[in-house]
């Protein structure tokens, strides 16, 4: 305790002293500059140097700021609301030595250098936004590293390095331009900074929620393993188990087969008709038609979750690893995507650029649509007896059994919508790159969304059990 107190007091003394030094530098910097560089505007000089400071700040944070996992673990044991915990961690993250530099030096500089109060405050806020953004960026990177995304460190740094080399001139000009623009009264830049910052906060909250859930699940699993009989662990049986549930039902099998092959007629005939046309509208049409190619995946998704509604009581009362359970659900849906990809590959003979559409749509279907189906399914609480319902007899039936399919199909509408603006400005390939990129990025974060889905299952467990039972 004594050592801790002594350290704490020394630490505070050191920081206080440093803050005084920085405040002095900040306050006298305009005067020093005017003396050393007569004729130069100190604000423009600082603005030109700021991008370098931001990069330096980012790397220093990356090296020095530690993700507060110990703090999180300690608080997870307390009866605190997760939202409060996330807010607290975010707040604590900002009370940092590097932010002290900002407050001490830049505030003093702004007071001393700016004649107009409003512009001075706007300038400060914009710089603060970039500094906070750096902090949040580092928080997210460290959060991902916490989740085992070790590749992200070197990959992120390499990417940063490459983009730095390629776009350094552009970037410097942009940031400096923003700051100069602000000085000349263009508050639009401030608005942009606020929007970017709000987005960064939302992403950071998402990261922290993900990490806290992961940590709390890890803790729960650790507790669960304290005394299992014979060293038993949690698991979920193999993929074949999932397959059996679906494939053994004649009705489901028929629906899957019909849904798989029926769109082929429409897609093939229409694309052959479109082959000779090359306009933005033909790209948009192509985007829409190829959506049908991956549509059966969503029907499969619906069935995959319909099966468990009959025996959710069972799987909730045995030691099931929900993470593995979800992973198998993901696999059973996504392994169909390469099949549909191959089914439509012959269309390349009609129009070669279809391959780009197929690749990007397939990536989107695996990386974005499938997790979205899984997410929606964690909300499902309607019993759906795939053995009992007459899927082809619509008379006298409520729409309840079909809702799972209709909502499951919502994600497929995203790629054809996303492609429209790009196709209209003649950048269809960029649009496809964005669509495929979304899928790839999401796939890179699969551990994160599996944890969030797992949290969703745990959170809504009782109401789902209740719902499945009532309809049963």
């Amino acid at each position, binding site marked *: 305790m004594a050592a801790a107190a002594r350290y704490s007091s020394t630490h505070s003394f050191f920081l206080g002293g440093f803050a005084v030094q920085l405040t002095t530098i900040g306050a006298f910097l305009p005067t020093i500059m005017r003396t050393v560089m007569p004729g130069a505007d100190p604000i423009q000089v600082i603005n030109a140097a700021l991008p370098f400071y931001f990069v330096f700040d980012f790397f220093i944070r990356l090296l020095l700021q530690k993700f507060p996992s110990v703090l999180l673990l300690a608080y997870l044991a307390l009866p605190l609301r997760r939202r409060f915990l996330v807010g607290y961690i975010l707040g604590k993250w900002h009370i940092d030595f590097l932010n002290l530099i900002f407050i001490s030096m830049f505030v003093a500089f702004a007071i001393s250098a700016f004649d107009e109060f409003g512009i001075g405050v706007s300038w400060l806020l914009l710089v603060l936004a970039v500094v906070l953004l750096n902090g949040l960026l580092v928080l997210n990177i460290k959060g991902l590293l916490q989740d085992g995304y070790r590749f992200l460190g070197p990959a992120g740094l390499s990417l940063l390095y490459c983009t730095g080399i390629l776009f350094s001139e552009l970037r410097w000009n942009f940031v400096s331009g923003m700051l100069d623009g602000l000085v000349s009264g263009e508050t639009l830049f401030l608005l942009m900074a606020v929007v970017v910052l709000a987005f960064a906060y939302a992403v950071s909250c998402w990261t922290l929620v993900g990490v806290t859930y992961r940590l709390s699940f890890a803790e*729960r699993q650790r*507790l*669960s*393993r*304290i*005394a*299992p*009989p*014979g*060293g*038993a*662990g*949690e*698991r*979920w*049986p193999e993929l074949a*188990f999932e397959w*059996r*549930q679906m494939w*053994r*039902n004649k009705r489901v099998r028929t629906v899957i087969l019909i849904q798989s092959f029926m769109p082929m007629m429409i897609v093939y005939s229409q694309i052959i008709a479109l082959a000779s046309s090359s306009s933005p509208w033909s790209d948009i049409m192509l985007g829409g038609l190829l959506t049908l190619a991956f549509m059966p995946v969503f029907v499969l998704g619906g069935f995959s979750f319909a*099966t468990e509604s*009959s*025996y*959710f*009581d*069972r799987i*909730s*009362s*045995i*030691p*099931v690893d929900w993470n593995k359970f979800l992973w198998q659900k993901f696999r059973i849906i996504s392994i169909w995507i390469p099949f549909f990809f191959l089914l439509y590959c012959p269309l390349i003979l009609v129009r070669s650029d279809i391959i780009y559409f197929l690749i990007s749509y397939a990536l989107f279907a695996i990386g974005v649509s499938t997790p979205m189906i899984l997410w929606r399914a964690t909300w499902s609480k309607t019993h759906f007896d795939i*053995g009992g319902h007459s899927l082809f007899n619509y008379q006298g039936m409520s729409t309840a059994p079909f809702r799972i399919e209709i909502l499951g199909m919502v994600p497929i509408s995203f790629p054809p919508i996303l492609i429209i603006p790009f196709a209209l400005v003649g950048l269809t390939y960029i649009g496809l790159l964005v669509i495929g990129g979304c899928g790839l990025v999401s796939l890179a974060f699969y551990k994160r969304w599996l944890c969030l889905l797992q949290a969703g299952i745990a959170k809504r467990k*009782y109401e789902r*059990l*209740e719902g*499945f*039972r009532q309809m*049963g």
Partner: protein
Amino acid sequence: MQIDIEYLTKSYQSLQVIDIKALSIPQGQAFGLVGNNGAGKTTLFRLILDLVKTDSGSIISGGVDVSESESWKFHTGSYLGEEFLIPFLTAEEYFHFIGRTYQLDDATVEERYRDYESFFSGEVLGQQKFIRDFSTGNKRKIGIVAALIVEPEVLILDEPFANLDPTSQQRLVDILVNLKGDRSPTLLISSHDLSNVTSVCDRIAVLELGDIVMDVDTGADTLDKLESYFFN
């Protein structure tokens, strides 16, 4: 494993279905729960299995609050009804599925479910039939055996004697009585069959509108007491 329940309440809308101030079931005891329809027997078992959220109170199974941890699942076998069965699996596949979640190897699982062949009366194993196509009695047998093969420290069975033929009922009584001798799991059974439950259980509680109104150790006159309670 001992089960301790304290100040447990559960309501559906305005109807209180469980209101138990204290109930302790010691390790190795065979505890029978009897009561008329709607007394709350199944709800109590669902609460013990954390399948229903409690309004208040706690359920501690083997020192662990069932809603806080999942460690109790490794020691608990249960069968409450058809919602515990997986319709498009054969009986053998279902046993292996349950066994795998408890990390039992396939050979052990097979060895264990084959021990119950006489209970199945030759109507379950090797039938190449999905569980959904079995009769209600055979479905119940499959569910009960699936709960038994994991050799749990706590075994929870809801109405295990219902829909079983008299021979199977007697075989089940023998299985449960022998179980007490072999491994002494804590046994929780609910039943309308007063005779069978008296044969199996060391202690019987009567549940009425969610409240335990009678709690007696089984003796020579227990069946008479229960009959007099329900029939008069």
